[in-house]
Structure formats: C-alpha cells, structure tokens
C-alpha cells in the first residue's frame, strides 16, 4: 500500500517530443505528489509537485496530470530538450516526515 509504481523504466525521445512518465499509488491517504529530477552524479532536486485537489499543474514546460479516481499521475515535458535528459522520480507523501519514491525513469532526449 505504501508503494508508488513508476513506468517506464527508461525512455528515449527526439528533441521537441513530449515524453510522458506515469505513476500509480494505492494509499488514498497520500496528499502530496512531487516529481524530482536527478542529473548524473548529483542528488535529486524537486521539479514540480501537485496536491489531489487539482487535476493539472504547469510550471514552464513541465506539467503534472493527476487522476484522483484512478490513483494515477503523470509528468509531461513539452518541447523536450537534450538538457532535460535526466532520471525522474515520482513520489507521494501523507505527511511532512516521509515520502515514498517511485523506481525512477531514465530519460534521454536525442538532438
């Protein structure tokens, strides 16, 4: 019930394409859903986050879509660039003390 399932494990997209990463959860007590971005050799950093009271949130080229009834959420990257190549983690939390991370998606944007 504490798991967050993430797919795909890896993704290759041409520059300008729209990669989509999907996550699913079981615990309905989760009320905060962040996405973290990690570049090689670095720690993860918060990219964008959403709460279940909205169905979509946009920040620049990054959009989270949230489906509360299906217990799923996804990250879309518009007009993807080679600099977006990184590992992306979805996560879920029901408190400020702990969050549960998905297994990660390694994204590669080809020039």
């Amino acid at each position, binding site marked *: 019930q504490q798991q967050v399932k*993430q797919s795909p*494990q890896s993704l290759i997209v041409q520059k300008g394409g729209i990669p989509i990463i999907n996550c699913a959860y079981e615990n309905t007590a989760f009320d*905060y859903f*962040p996405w973290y971005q990690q570049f090689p*050799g*670095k*720690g*993860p*950093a*918060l990219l964008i*986050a959403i709460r279940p009271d909205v169905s979509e949130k946009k920040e620049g080229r990054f959009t989270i879509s949230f489906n509360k009834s299906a217990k799923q959420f996804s990250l879309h990257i518009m007009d993807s660039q080679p600099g977006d190549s990184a590992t992306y*983690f979805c996560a879920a*939390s029901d408190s*400020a*003390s*702990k*969050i549960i*991370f*998905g*297994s*990660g998606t390694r994204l590669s944007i080809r020039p």
Partner: protein
Amino acid sequence: NAGVTQTPKFRILKIGQSMTLQCTQDMNHNYMYWYRQDPGMGLKLIYYSVGAGITDKGEVPNGYNVSRSTTEDFPLRLELAAPSQTSVYFCASSWGETQYFGPGTRLLVL
C-alpha cells in the same frame, strides 16, 4: 548557503569494516533523512529524524545506525560492512514537504 553537504564522496570498504557517512545541513531544517539508491530501484529510506535527539527507522534500516545530536548533523554509521551495502547514499533535509538532497556518497564494499 552550502545546503546539504556529504562526506566522503567515494569510499571503498572491505567486508566487516566500519565507517561513518557524514551529513551536514545549514538551512536549520528539522527533518533529515538517509536514503540509499541502487540502480533501477529508486530511493529507499534508511533512517530519518524529525529533530535533534529523535530518530526513527525507515524502509531498510538493517545494518545501519544513526544519531542526531544537533540540528545540523545527521551521521550514518555502518558497523560491519557487507557487499549488499554497496550503493549510493543520499542525505536530505526538509522544513516542509520539499526535501533538499546532498550530492551523495558512493560506497563500494569488497
């Protein structure tokens, strides 16, 4: 602000050796965390702390110990290193829901 700093960056241990991974944050965050990251497995929570003097187990605490004597420092101790502890270790801190991660320590146990 240096944020979250971790030392060392890389270490090779022999089986059975002990070591301490250091973590320091200068953001006055109450919450601190230790994660391990294995390839394709995401981040697993080892231990966390909600304030000085308070620690609790995460998902994978076996083989590790922590202490939190100050707000700034949250060291992770490996007492008897095993090959299964080969991983990249990340320390993080938070005030609210956003966690700030350090650069990581790569540990190889041979």
